[in-house]
């Protein structure tokens, strides 16, 4: 466990240092670099993107995912494109429809009896996300496909939560977020994680323990 947290801390620091990327509102304002990280025992992702317009961002992601029994391991390095398809701004709410696309190299190992076979494939990662947010309520649903020859993972995530209270713009706002996510052909379990989210302007952090008693941390920072 100590090794795991050490790796999380090192990766977090690395992400902040190299302008790497992150996960929730997946695109900043025009000209910004958004860095994101999502770390748990079986899912470790670090990414960044650069917003060339207020609706388009290009970036890079490094993702390590594995099954619960560790028989299936995947390492993806991909270039990504994020498109804000539509945004609805209201006085007290904002909702967005996002499109994701990525293409990259997938490496991994698969157990065949006592033998472990390694592979290297091209992977495509299209996806969509819808989110709705007020100053007190948050909801997001994400569906992403991870496709390579003989490999089909469908990732689905639903997040909902509320803020304990409103804060001034420059104060830290705490939220309670519950996420349920599932990746088929990787795990038979639905991972459910209650997380404490803290937002302070350009910094965003979430941490929690999932239903397998495994810690998880998400971070985002905008440059």
């Amino acid at each position, binding site marked *: 466990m100590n090794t795991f947290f050490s790796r999380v801390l090192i990766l977090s620091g690395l992400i902040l240092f190299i302008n790497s990327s992150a996960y929730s509102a997946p695109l*900043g304002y025009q000209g910004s670099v958004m860095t994101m990280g999502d770390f748990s025992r079986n899912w470790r992702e670090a990414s960044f993107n650069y917003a060339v317009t207020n609706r388009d961002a290009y970036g890079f992601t490094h993702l390590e995912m594995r099954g619960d029994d560790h028989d299936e391991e995947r390492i993806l390095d991909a270039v990504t494109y994020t498109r804000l398809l539509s945004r609805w*701004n209201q006085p007290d709410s904002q909702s967005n429809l996002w499109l994701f696309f990525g293409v990259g190299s997938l490496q991994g190992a698969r157990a065949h009896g006592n033998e472990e076979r390694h592979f290297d494939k091209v992977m495509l990662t299209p996806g969509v996300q819808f989110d709705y947010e007020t100053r007190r309520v948050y909801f997001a649903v994400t569906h992403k496909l991870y496709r390579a020859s003989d490999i089909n993972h469908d990732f689905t995530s639903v997040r909902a939560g509320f803020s304990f209270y409103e804060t001034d713009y420059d104060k830290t706002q705490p939220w309670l977020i519950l996420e349920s996510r599932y990746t088929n052909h990787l795990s038979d379990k639905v991972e459910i994680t209650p997380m404490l989210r803290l937002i302070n302007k350009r910094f965003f952090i979430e941490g929690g323990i999932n239903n397998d008693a495994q810690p998880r941390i998400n971070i985002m920072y905008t440059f």
Partner: protein
Amino acid sequence: MKKLIAILFLALSMTSISAFANTLKLTVNGMVCAFCAQGIEKKVKALPETKDVYVNLKAHLVAIELKDGQKISNDTVTRIIKDAGYDVTAIEESSHSLAVIKSELDK
């Protein structure tokens, strides 16, 4: 009596400050989260005409205090807010400083 004098002095000071302030008050839709809205602050602060910026999510307000003698067109600020991902629904000129506007909203 001393308190009364102090209050009068403070009120006169604030009136004096506000008389010289040159501020735009923008009503902005979609500002619900500081993590997202900080793009507005950064973009507006980067303008050479800007002295300071105040964002209030609850009041849907972005207040821009301009430097002495400076002006920004409504089209310019509307475009900047739009580029940050938000919609301006109203713009009002004010002679109040950001400190006065903030204190009024804090009441």
